[in-house]
């Protein structure tokens, strides 16, 4: 399999706080990789750097062997190919669900309103939200909002999708419906990077799991290996705490 994304010695600081320290990774096309680690370990920052929402200080990121972090590269066409879904949904509250999804299709990809609308309704039907197309985000449950946010990101047909703790802001009974959508995405050819605290889900869905500690890759391996036989002491400790907190089932 070819490499979809390559991170080479990526570093990022906020002021004097170095959040990412020399992170290097290769991710294959169609792979599902989960980033786990304590709060503040740099998961969100890593995903935002890949989406070019943050500028990295050192190192490089390559998409299909083309460096996207080079100075002067236009970020907009790259961002179309790398979607991101946020923990807090970030839907546009002044737009209907339909408009949330069609905005980038018409403005960025130049599709007609009709084409865009039919893409929106196909995606919403797929996620069981076809009756919500003309609703406004505030009238939807958290789970519904997050599924709309996923639909919005998928509408651009991205090659890579970054999911940043997409179930953390949800009530437990709504987590399942969002995770079902992610399960459905696996195997569709899209490359998935997820930051998550849902260890059971990470174990189930991931090809590989990356354990981040203090902005470095402490351990990287298959889901099976990381969860059953972690070698790094920090990984062991972290999983121990997670298990005693009851967040790793199955």
């Amino acid at each position, binding site marked *: 399999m070819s490499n979809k994304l390559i991170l080479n010695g990526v570093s990022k600081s906020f002021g004097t706080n170095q959040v990412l320290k020399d992170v290097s990774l290769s991710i294959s096309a169609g792979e599902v990789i989960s980033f786990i680690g304590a709060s503040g370990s740099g998961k969100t920052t890593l995903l*935002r750097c890949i*989406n070019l*929402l943050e500028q990295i200080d050192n190192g490089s990121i390559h998409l299909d062997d083309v460096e996207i972090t080079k100075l002067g590269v236009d*970020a*907009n*066409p790259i*961002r*179309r190919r790398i*979607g*991101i879904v*946020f923990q*807090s949904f*970030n*839907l*546009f*509250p*002044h737009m209907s669900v339909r408009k949330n999804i069609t*905005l*980038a299709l018409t*403005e*960025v990809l130049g599709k007609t309103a009709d084409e865009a609308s039919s893409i929106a309704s196909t995606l919403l039907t797929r996620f069981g939200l076809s009756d919500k197309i003309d609703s*406004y985000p*505030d*009238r939807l449950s958290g789970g519904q909002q997050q599924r709309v946010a996923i639909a*919005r*990101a998928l509408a*651009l047909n991205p090659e890579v999708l970054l999911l940043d703790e997409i179930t953390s802001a949800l009530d437990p009974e709504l987590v399942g419906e969002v995770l079902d959508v992610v399960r459905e995405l696996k195997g569709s050819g899209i490359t998935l990077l997820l930051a998550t605290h849902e260890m059971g889900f990470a174990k189930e869905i991931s090809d590989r799991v990356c354990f981040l500690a203090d902005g470095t890759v402490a351990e990287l391996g298959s889901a099976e290996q990381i969860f059953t036989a972690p070698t790094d002491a920090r990984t062991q400790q972290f999983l121990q705490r997670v298990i005693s907190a009851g967040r790793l089932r199955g």
Partner: protein
Amino acid sequence: MVFLVPRMPRWDRVKKSFFDWDRLTDSFPHLLRAFVLDIKIFAWTTPAILIVAILIAIARSTRNPALFPVRIFVIAYTDIMRGVPVILWIYLVGFGVPGIGMDRPWNSPLIWGSVALGMTYSAYVAEVFRAGIESVHESQRAAARSLGLSSSQTMRHVILPQAIRRVVPPLMNDMVSLQKDVALVSLIGPIEILRQAGIDKAKFANFTPFIGAALIFLAITIPLTRFTDYLLTRERDRTGASKVR
């Protein structure tokens, strides 16, 4: 007040010189005719103010380092415009610019008085828009940019619509004061309602025309304020979550 005022010793005289029904009906037609000019000034300054103010607010909110000089310029503009009383700008621009000897109609104090009014108000209104733009959470910008929208598309489709909705009440406040400050243009010549009331006052030796003018202003500004409230409530009902009891 309602109870005490009529019991004051000189109430009868005040009543006669401020609340004389015949004088009111005599001057009302003049006042209404003069008020048309107020409405005209209001009507042509408002769109100009809104457009200039949005442009200033966008210029101030831009993060493009190349536009740094523009930002400095608009900051200076808003500071200077807001730092001097409106009436002074009306005198300076309204008398000053026609004084440089332009041909008709460009030497009219009416035009330059309105321009001065528009310039000062655009600076105030720009601050309102800027507060609105800054109140839109950074995560909205992140969401828009992550979809590949450029920064100007993000401003136009995501930031501005939310910002404008939020600033409608303070904006309407400014519009209501503009509606009233239009009368200041009369101080450099044009006969609008306030000046007409002054003329009628002198003619009748009675202050009632000013009461007439006040009533006419209220007839415009109160419905304007109520209408804004209605629009806001409707917008909130359409997009908002259900109300908490």
